[in-house]
């Protein structure tokens, strides 16, 4: 369970009952979950179009395209197998085919929802992220973005956890991040047209005519590079990191399915995400949405967390020349 109350997650809610709605609303608020009510029950597009989800809540009487109950749950699970499903029934004796661990993570009734809390802890807020680390990631990322995008103001949501493995946008920069206590990847995702528009408006270090997609890639890659550099300086435990450590050679394949806009890092652990809305500082029009995801798929030992900038000799002033 994370100890940072700032970290949230989003859940899609398929619920027909007003009383249940109110109870879920309170439960979501008390567990850092942002509930997204499915108001249009006629389509499964809601599931496909909602990225950054952490869970789905569905009641046995809710109908989507003539499906309800266990049939609906199976379809949701088939569409988004990575998402934990919380299934509300009025009578548990009617539940035969569905058992926790198969298609659903939790079957509950309005007056008995202990399993919801356990499932939230087990499947969503299962990873401890030290608060200074989360704060540092955000500050370093803001610095890197502002170094590459001029004359902007940046709005940022609370950090949140997602279980889904959906690729947002059209453009992705992926960089391995590793120290002796974490190994994984950082992804930046955005859309090309928005970045091109910023380049054309002179908001980047690039020439306004450099709108070829390779320049767009370069900009996103440089932001990713600077973020990883900053995180490495502040949080990597360099002294204990051995280049020949066999654990550092461990890798797992990453699969990308463009048709389904899906990326898998081989882990079902939630991803830590930040969402930046970058606006032109002069007229506050939105320029770019940037999604950042951290996936610690190869190692995560937060008990070894330490900030490395608490000793004077390790402090680094970015941008200053050190002459030898």
């Amino acid at each position: 369970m994370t100890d940072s109350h700032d970290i949230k997650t989003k859940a899609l809610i398929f619920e027909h009952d007003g009383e249940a709605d109110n109870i879920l609303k309170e439960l979501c608020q008390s567990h850092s979950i942002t509930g997204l009510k499915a108001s249009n029950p006629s389509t499964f597009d809601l599931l496909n179009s909602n990225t950054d989800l952490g869970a789905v809540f569905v009641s046995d009487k809710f109908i989507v395209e003539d499906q309800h109950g266990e049939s609906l749950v199976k379809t949701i699970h088939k569409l988004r197998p990575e998402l934990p499903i919380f299934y509300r029934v009025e009578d548990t004796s009617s539940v035969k085919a569905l058992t926790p661990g198969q298609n659903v993570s939790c079957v509950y009734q309005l007056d008995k929802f202990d399993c919801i809390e356990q499932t939230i802890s087990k499947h969503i807020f299962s990873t401890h992220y030290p608060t200074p680390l989360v704060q540092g990631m955000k500050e370093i990322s803001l610095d890197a973005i502002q170094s590459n995008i001029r004359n902007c103001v940046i709005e940022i949501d609370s950090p949140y956890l997602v279980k889904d493995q959906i690729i947002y946008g059209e453009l992705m920069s992926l960089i391995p991040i590793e120290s002796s206590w974490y190994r994984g990847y950082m992804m930046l995702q955005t859309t090309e047209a928005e970045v091109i528009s910023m380049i054309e408006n002179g908001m980047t270090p690039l020439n306004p005519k450099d709108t070829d997609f390779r320049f767009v890639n370069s900009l996103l890659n440089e932001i990713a590079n600077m973020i990883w550099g900053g995180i490495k300086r502040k949080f990597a435990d360099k002294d204990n990191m051995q280049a020949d450590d066999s654990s550092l050679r461990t890798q797992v394949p990453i699969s990308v399915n463009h048709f389904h806009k899906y990326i898998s890092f081989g882990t079902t652990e939630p991803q830590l995400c930040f969402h930046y809305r970058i606006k032109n500082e002069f007229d506050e029009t939105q320029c770019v949405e940037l999604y950042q995801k951290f996936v610690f798929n190869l190692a995560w030992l937060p008990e070894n967390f330490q900030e490395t900038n608490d000793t004077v000799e390790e402090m680094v002033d970015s941008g200053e020349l050190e002459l030898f």
Partner: protein
Amino acid sequence: MAQVLVVDDSATVRNEVSTFLKNNGFAVETADDGKQGLDKLRSDSAIKLVISDVNMPNMDGLTMAEKIRSELGNQTVNIIMLTTESDPRMKERGKAAGVKGWIVKPFKGDAIVGAVRKLVS
């Protein structure tokens, strides 16, 4: 007009550093990686200073610095590393290869121009 070679795999950084330097009266050449940087140095003796990233494909900046001294036998060109890296072991390797300065990204244009002025004067 002193000629500066900017070596970085990022077009964004190449463009930004080049613009700062050109606006301050320097002539600028660019290269995408260490291998290309070495080729430019081989063919252009007017280059007086190299500003290079460390992590690049094909050949990294520190290897390029070592080869400038050993393979090209060029002991006079000044080299500054402009990088996200701050590992003391990397800096030591840079010093041993004759690197004169180290700037950690994100950088300030004034620092780059100031460093270049200091080293080419």
